[in-house]
């Protein structure tokens, strides 16, 4: 264990807010929701009409040179975000090789290919896509990234539902800190706004029938999203050797599991992940200035997460700026943690906590109000991003300001 420091030198995002990190950050900062009306021809009994999707026109505009016959859109999203991140990091062909890992998570993998082929496979007259398996497999995006750049270090695909990408970033951080690798292309990708997956979320009763309003008393569910968030992480030494611009430090990481109920969150698991991240970063409660909450807008998550934050931050909780940006970009499941870490990094850089849009009224069971209206100025060296997943998987990342290095 070298305990190397780990820094972010490039970020990329392809989200319902549009192409690039600027589109994601400005939408989050200004509270502009990417919720759109969606209607699936294959779902005759569809009730919920809203999702934060990536329209075909937006994807097509950025993927004309992709190998569509071999790649589901989940891989396409990841390659678009990876290109932005790698370009910003200024990595050259010599910077990849076997010192560079790829750790990119996904919850569903190639959901569109799966959906289309499910509808086709019972019909003997319709040819199933012979590339179904390589397009659907959850690790396809990670492998395509490694092939695109010649990154020959370890490839991992972490699939832990809504914690997939936060845990991917966390695992990258741990491998970098240990000295096992020098740099890593990491994050998550999800392309789940397709008929079958949408309907599956609908019948789980966690999609809001109208609009997503985390922490509000009248909240009634989440907004399904999709997209990809990719980060280039490297050891501080590697970044300094290359003369790279350092955007922020990964200052701490904590991950735990509830080992309880598959769907109902346990605040103790969430609190323990945050506490471990705080200890890892060597921070006391008052030093974190903003928390980008998991904040799905479901009854259970928002109560559990608040209880956990109160336990971890104690008296400092009242002065902590908290918001959920999911009503803006949607809940991107396996890409959520990466997109939100990128927003959190921008909060730190610009010293602004983005608002929780759509917030209505205080819920006595929650007892606090998130940042509302306009982005709130903050003065802090550290920001937190939380992800909590079905299966009881909790992951918390703490980012530190680059000026501290």
């Amino acid at each position: 264990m070298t305990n190397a420091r780990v820094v972010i030198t490039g970020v990329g995002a392809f989200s319902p807010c549009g192409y690039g990190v600027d589109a994601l950050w400005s939408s989050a900062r200004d509270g502009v929701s990417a919720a759109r009306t969606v209607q699936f021809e294959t779902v005759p009994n569809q009730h919920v009409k809203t999702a934060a999707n990536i329209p075909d026109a937006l994807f097509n505009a950025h993927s004309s040179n992709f190998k569509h016959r071999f790649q589901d859109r989940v891989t396409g999203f990841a390659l678009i975000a990876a290109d932005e991140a790698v370009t910003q990091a200024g990595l050259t062909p010599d910077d990849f090789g076997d010192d560079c890992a790829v750790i990119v998570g996904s919850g569903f993998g190639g959901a569109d290919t799966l959906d289309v082929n499910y509808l086709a496979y019972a019909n003997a007259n319709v040819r199933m896509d012979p590339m179904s398996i390589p397009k659907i497999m959850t690790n396809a995006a990670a492998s395509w990234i490694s092939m695109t750049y010649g990154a020959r270090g370890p490839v991992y695909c972490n699939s832990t539902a809504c914690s997939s990408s936060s845990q991917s970033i966390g695992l990258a951080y741990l491998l970098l800190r240990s000295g096992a690798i020098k740099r890593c292309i990491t994050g998550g990708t999800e392309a789940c706004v397709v008929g079958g997956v949408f309907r599956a979320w609908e019948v789980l009763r966690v999609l809001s029938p109208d609009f997503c309003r985390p922490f509000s008393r009248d909240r009634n569910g989440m907004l399904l999203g999709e997209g990809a968030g990719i980060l280039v992480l490297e050891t501080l030494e590697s970044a300094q050797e290359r003369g790279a611009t350092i955007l922020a430090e990964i200052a701490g990481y904590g991950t735990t599991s509830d080992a309880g109920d598959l769907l109902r969150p346990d605040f103790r698991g969430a609190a323990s992940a945050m506490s471990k991240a705080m200890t890892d970063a060597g921070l006391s409660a008052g030093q974190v200035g903003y928390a980008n909450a998991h904040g799905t807008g479901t009854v259970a998550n928002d109560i559990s997460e608040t209880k956990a934050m109160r336990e971890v931050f104690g008296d400092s909780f009242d002065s902590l700026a908290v918001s959920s940006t999911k009503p803006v970009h949607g809940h991107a499941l396996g890409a959520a943690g990466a997109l939100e870490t990128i927003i959190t990094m921008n909060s730190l850089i610009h010293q602004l906590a983005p608002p929780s849009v759509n917030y209505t009224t205080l819920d006595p069971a929650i007892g606090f109000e998130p940042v509302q209206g306009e982005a709130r100025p903050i003065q802090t060296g550290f920001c937190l991003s939380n992800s909590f997943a079905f299966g009881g998987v909790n992951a918390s990342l703490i980012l530190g300001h680059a000026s501290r290095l």
Partner: protein
Amino acid sequence: MRNDTTEKSKLEEDLLDLVAEEGMIDRASLQRDALMADLNIASADFIMILMAIEEKYGIYISVDNEMADLKTIQDLLTAASKKIREKEQG
């Protein structure tokens, strides 16, 4: 008024049938004042009940605070029939 009351109780009786079937509880022993927790109606069973309501009445009910706070079978019947009537009228 009387008709309304009759319709209301018919709806609740139908819902009781549905809860018994989805919750895998003996219909005869399903008391309105029973606590759902005591009947071992867990979060997953509750989702199945809401699914059956969608199939039977064509309405979508997500889990909000009102649904999350239900304690007894009667609470569930009252909340579900209220939402069904709201949707039917709206």
